[in-house]
C-alpha cells in the first residue's frame, strides 16, 4: 500500500506542477482583470540591466502571479476558504454583511482631512466671491454596517464634526440621517440614484433651489458587479443599475471638458454603462469638468459642484434647479486652473464628497 501511495503521490505532484507550468508558459497573456478592475502585469523586458537591477525578477513575480491560469476562480477559492473554513470576517479587507459587500474603514486620518479642507479653502479664497457655499458629506455605507455587524469603523459623527470645524465658512447640509442601507448598491461603494431623490431635494432646498421630483425609473440591462464584488472575489449576485429621467432632464445640454476643449456629451453614457465599470455611466465617470445647461430652469441661477464619484449620480438631479451647473472633480484637474472654465460670480457652490475620499484626499490637486 505504502509503495503504491508513494508512487501515486510522486506522479500526481509531478503531473500537477509540470502541467500547470506548461499552461503558465503557453497561455496567452491576459490584458485586464475585470474583477479587480486593473491591468494585469505583463512579461517584463529581459536585459542585463533589468536582470542585475532586480527589475526583471520583481516584474516576473508580478507577471507570474497575475497571469496564473484560472486566477479569478482561484481567488474565489481563497476567499471562500478564508471566510468559510478559517472563519475570517473579512477577505482582503472586504466583508459581507446584511447582503452587502463593504470595505473595512481606514482609521481617521487628520492629515488627509486637513489636506482636503485646505484645498477647499484655497478654492474659496481664490474663486468664491459670495457666501453661498454648501458642504455635504456622503458617509460610507459602513456608517450603518460597521456598528451593526461589530466591524471596526470610523466614528462618522466625529469625522463629520472634524470636517465641519475645518470648513466653518460653508453651510453644512446633513444627509446622513436620510440614508439607509438600501440606498447603496450591494456590491459597490456608491449610492443608488433612484434612492437619493429625497436627498437631492433636501440639498436643493437648503440651497434655495427647487427641483421637480417626478422621474421615470429606467433599468440598465447589464448586470452590475460593483467594485467590491471583484475585490472580495466572493460569489455574489449582481446589482441592478437604475437611472432617472424626466422631461426637464431630457432637455439638458451636457458638455464634457475631458480633453480640455468642449465636447458634447450625454448625461448617461451608455457606452460606459456596458464597459468595465457601469457606474461610470453617470456623467461619464472620471471627468475633470463638465457643464449641464438646463433650458427649462426658469431662472438664471448657476451651480458649481465640487465632487467625487458620488456626485456623478446626484448632479443631474440638482441641475434641474439651475440654468447652468458646472461639475468639477479636482482629482483630475488642478484646482488652481478651474477659474478658466467655471463662472463663480453669483453661483451657488456645493462641495459634496464621500468620507472615504476626504479621509484619503491625496488625489485632490
Amino acid at each position, binding site marked *: 500500500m505504502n509503495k503504491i501511495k508513494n508512487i501515486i503521490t510522486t506522479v*500526481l505532484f509531478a503531473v500537477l506542477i509540470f502541467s500547470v507550468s506548461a499552461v503558465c508558459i503557453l497561455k496567452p497573456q491576459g490584458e485586464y482583470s475585470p474583477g479587480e478592475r486593473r491591468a494585469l502585469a505583463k512579461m517584463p523586458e529581459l536585459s542585463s540591466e533589468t536582470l542585475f537591477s532586480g527589475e526583471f525578477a520583481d516584474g516576473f513575480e508580478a507577471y507570474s502571479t497575475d497571469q496564473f491560469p484560472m486566477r479569478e476562480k482561484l481567488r474565489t477559492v481563497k476567499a471562500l476558504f478564508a471566510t468559510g473554513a478559517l472563519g475570517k470576517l473579512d477577505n482582503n479587507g472586504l466583508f459581507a454583511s446584511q447582503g452587502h459587500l463593504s470595505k473595512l474603514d481606514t482609521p481617521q486620518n487628520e492629515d488627509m482631512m486637513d489636506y482636503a479642507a485646505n484645498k477647499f479653502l484655497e478654492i474659496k479664497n481664490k474663486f468664491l466671491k459670495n457666501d453661498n457655499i454648501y458642504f455635504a458629506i456622503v458617509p460610507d455605507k459602513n456608517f450603518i454596517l460597521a456598528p451593526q455587524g461589530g466591524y471596526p469603523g470610523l466614528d462618522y459623527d466625529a469625522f463629520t464634526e472634524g470636517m465641519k470645524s475645518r470648513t466653518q465658512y460653508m453651510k453644512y447640509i446633513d444627509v446622513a440621517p436620510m440614508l439607509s442601507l438600501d440606498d447603496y448598491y450591494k456590491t459597490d461603494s456608491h449610492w443608488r440614484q433612484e434612492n437619493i431623490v429625497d436627498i437631492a431635494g433636501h440639498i436643493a432646498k437648503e440651497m434655495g433651489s427647487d427641483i421637480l421630483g417626478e422621474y421615470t425609473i429606467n433599468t440598465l440591462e447589464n448586470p452590475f458587479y460593483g467594485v467590491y464584488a471583484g475585490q472580495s472575489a466572493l460569489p455574489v449576485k449582481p446589482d441592478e443599475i437604475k437611472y432617472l429621467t424626466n422631461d426637464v432632464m431630457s432637455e439638458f445640454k451636457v458638455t464634457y471638458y475631458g480633453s480640455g476643449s468642449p465636447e458634447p456629451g450625454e448625461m448617461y453614457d451608455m457606452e460606459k454603462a456596458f464597459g468595465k465599470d457601469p457606474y461610470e455611466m453617470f456623467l461619464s465617470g472620471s471627468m475633470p469638468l463638465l457643464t449641464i445647461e438646463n433650458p427649462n430652469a426658469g431662472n438664471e441661477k448657476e451651480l458649481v459642484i465640487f465632487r467625487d464619484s458620488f456626485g456623478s449620480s446626484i448632479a443631474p438631479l440638482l441641475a434641474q434647479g439651475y440654468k447652468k451647473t458646472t461639475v468639477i472633480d479636482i482629482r483630475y484637474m488642478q484646482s488652481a486652473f478651474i477659474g478658466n472654465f467655471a463662472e463663480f460670480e453669483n453661483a451657488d457652490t456645493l462641495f459634496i464628497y464621500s468620507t472615504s475620499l476626504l479621509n484619503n484626499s491625496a488625489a485632490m490637486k
Partner: protein
Amino acid sequence: MLFSSISFLYYFLPAVILLYFAVPKPIKNAVLLVSSLAFYAWGEPKYVFLMIASILVNYVLGIAIEKFRGKPLSKVFLGISALFSLGMLGYFKYADFFIANFNKITGLSVGMLKIALPIGISFYTFQILSYTIDVYRGNVAAQKNPITLGAYVALFPQLIAGPIVRYSDVELQLQTRTHSFEKAALGIRRFILGLAKKVIIANTLGELCEAFHASGDKSVLFYWLFVIAYMLQIYFDFSGYSDMAIGLGKIFGFDFMENFCYPFISRSISEFWRRWHISLGSWFRDYVYIPMGGNRVGKIRLVFNILTVWFLTGFWHGAEWNFIVWGLYFAVFLMLEKFVLAKYLERAKGLNHIYVLFFVAISFGIFSASGMGQALSALGGMFGAGELPFISAEFVYNLRSFGPLLVIAAVGATPLVTMVKNKLPSKLTDILEIPVLFVLLIIATAYLADGSFNPFLYFRF
C-alpha cells in the same frame, strides 16, 4: 525567490526537477549548484558573486587547513576562514549597528554604510564555518571538488531560511545519495505541509499582526493577541520553511536535520530551545559553547559561557539591541532553571507549560520590535502602561475574525494532530492523505494567485 511564490512552484521547481533527474549522476551536483546560484541571483543578482567568492575562498582554505592539519599553519588558515566569513557577516549585517552605537557614545556622526543585507548570509556563513572548523578538527575531509562544496553551501532548499545544515551531516550524501519514490513522496508530503503552514496559517496570522500595527485602537488585550499571533506566525513561518527545505532535500536525495519539534509543549525554557531552531542551537553548542568549556567549568565561567552564547544567539537574529536583549533574556531563564528552577518545574505539572508559554510570549514582544524603544513599548502595552484601555473594539473584531485560525494554529503547534492521525485506521489515513495534500496545495496556490499578504521574515538574518 521565495518557496511560497508562483514563480518558484510552477516555473523554477519543475525546471530544476526536470533537469536534475534528466542528467546522469556525476552531473547532478553541478545542476544543483547552478540552479541554486540562479535561485539566489533571482533575489540578489549582485550578492551572488559574494557567495561565489565565499565558496572559492573557503574551498582553498579547506584544502590548506587539511594539508597542514596538526601544524600551526592549519590554525592560521582556519583563522583566515573565520575572519573572512565573520568579516563579511560583520560588514554586511552589523556595520551600521556598530556605527550607530559608536556615534551615540562619542557624539560623532560617522556616516552609515546603508548596505543591503545579502539574504541568507547568516545561514550560509554558519554552514561554511562548520565546514572549515570540522576540517580543522579532522571530523571531515576537505572537499576537493569545488562544485560539490559549492552545491553544499548554495543548496537552494535551505539557503535562505535554514535549517543550518552542517557539512559533516551531508558529506556522504553529496558524494552518493539515493533517490526513490519513497523519498520523493516523503519530500513532497513534507514540502506541501510546509507550504500550507507558511501560506495559509503564518501569512494569515501575519495579517492580524499587520492589523495590530496599523490600528489606532490598541488595548492591553490587543497587545496580548498580537504577541500570541506573532509567536504562532513565526513558528508556522519558520517551521514551514524548514519543512519545505527538508522536503525539497528529500526529493533531491538529502536528509537534512529537523529544525523544530513542537516547541510550545515544552515544560522549561531549556526544553523550548531544544525544540526551537534546533540547527542554530546545536551549532552554537558545538562551535561556541563546548569549545568555551561548556558545563565543565566553574560557576562564574559557566555564567559567562551561557551569557556569551545567548548574546551571540540574539545578535545572530538581527543587528539591533532588542535582539541582544532577547538572547540575554533567555540566558537569564536558562541559568535560573539550571541553578534553581529545574526541580520545581519538573514537579509543577501544567504550571510548567504556562510558565514557558507566558515567558516565551513576552520574549516575542521583544523579538517583534525593530529596536529597544519599540520593544519597551510592546512590553509596556502588554502590561497596561500609560493610559492604554484594557479592551478595545478592534481587539474584539480581530479576536472574532482570527479566533478560529488561532485555535487551529494553537492545536497545530502541538503533536495532537499527529496523535489523532495515528489513532485512525491506517487504511483510512492512507486513502485520505493524498487528496488532503493536493487540496492543501491547491488552496496554497489560490492564496498565492490572489496575491495575498506574503511577507519574507528572514531579511534580517
